[in-house]
């Protein structure tokens, strides 16, 4: 028997909303799955297609980009741009054969600790059902690689 599949999920979280919401979830002692690895970004609009691809290339099973609520972006419309990029990248993931549904865009505010935990749970369950990233075991050991490459890329 194979051991139960534990998905690795990379969440690109905007510093001004989702990242703070994650903090709040922590201080409220809300449980959310340890599968979600957070990469803090200055704005969801900073996340590019290449960062998302590198996460999958590193073995992530799912990725989501978490930005501010519509109209609340600190940089005016970074979250709107992020959403468009996510749509584009989903199509690309479909072409590559990874599957577009492994990528999502979510919006929340800094005060939504509860919602942050809920999103983390929902997406983890969804990815668990989808099963592993088809190239997961064909690359480097996952988790660290997924987060590391994403971070390196984001910093570039």
């Amino acid at each position, binding site marked *: 028997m194979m051991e139960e599949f534990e998905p690795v999920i990379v969440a690109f979280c905007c510093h001004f909303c989702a990242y703070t919401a994650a903090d709040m979830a922590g201080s409220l002692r809300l449980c959310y799955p340890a599968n979600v690895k957070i990469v803090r970004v200055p704005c969801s609009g900073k996340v590019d*297609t*290449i960062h998302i691809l590198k996460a999958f*290339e590193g073995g992530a099973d799912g990725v989501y980009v978490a930005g501010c609520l519509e109209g609340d972006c600190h940089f005016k419309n970074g979250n709107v741009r992020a959403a468009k990029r996510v749509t584009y990248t989903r199509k690309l993931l479909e072409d590559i054969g990874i599957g577009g549904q492994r990528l999502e865009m979510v919006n929340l505010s800094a005060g939504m600790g509860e919602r942050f935990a809920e999103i983390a749970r929902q997406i983890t369950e969804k990815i668990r059902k989808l099963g592993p990233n088809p190239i997961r075991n*064909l690359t480097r050991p996952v988790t660290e690689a997924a987060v590391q490459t994403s971070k390196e890329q984001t910093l570039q």
Partner: protein
Amino acid sequence: MITAERKPLEEIIEYIRPFQKILLVGCNECVTVCAAGGRKEVGILSASLQMSLLKQGKNLQIREHTLERQCDPEYVEELTPMIDGVDAVLSMACGCGVQEMSRRFKDKPVFPAVNTKFMGASERQGVWAERCQGCGDCLLGITGGICPIARCSKQLMNGPCGGSTTGKCEISPDVDCAWQLIWDRLKALGLEDRYERIIPAKDWRPGRGAGPRKIIREDLAE
């Protein structure tokens, strides 16, 4: 600029399928500006190809490199130290860049990763539109600065045809009627009289008419 769009992934994969190691080359000029083949797109294509082939059980080795200008022999020379280590070259430059690679590296297969589209300008973020067809004998001085060759669907030099409707071309409501634009411009400039002059049939020799074109500047050529 020369605009381009990435080819479908499937088509690119078919080109490189027989090879183990490829050199993926971007260009820092036009294709960077139109987000088709610059450093960033090289990274995206590289990751996409690697993942897609990995899924099919193949570990493709890709070396990424983006040149300052792929249509210029000086810059292409940069690739010389890398070329022996690869089986094939995949170029993300326009057709000019791809052909410069073929010319320089005679024993390496070179494949295009983009479709070169047209000479155009950026209308707004993420939107590029055709502006020039390189006819070799510019008419813009007599058409209010708007080109009927590149922008009229029927290439009418004495338009507009009977299909112009509320400023749009009959082929699509997304296409402006070039002659409406020309007329509006002529009016704005007080040059309505110019419309009445018949533009004579064009000599296409400076365009493609006389075969492949070449410019030789005697003062510069070696």
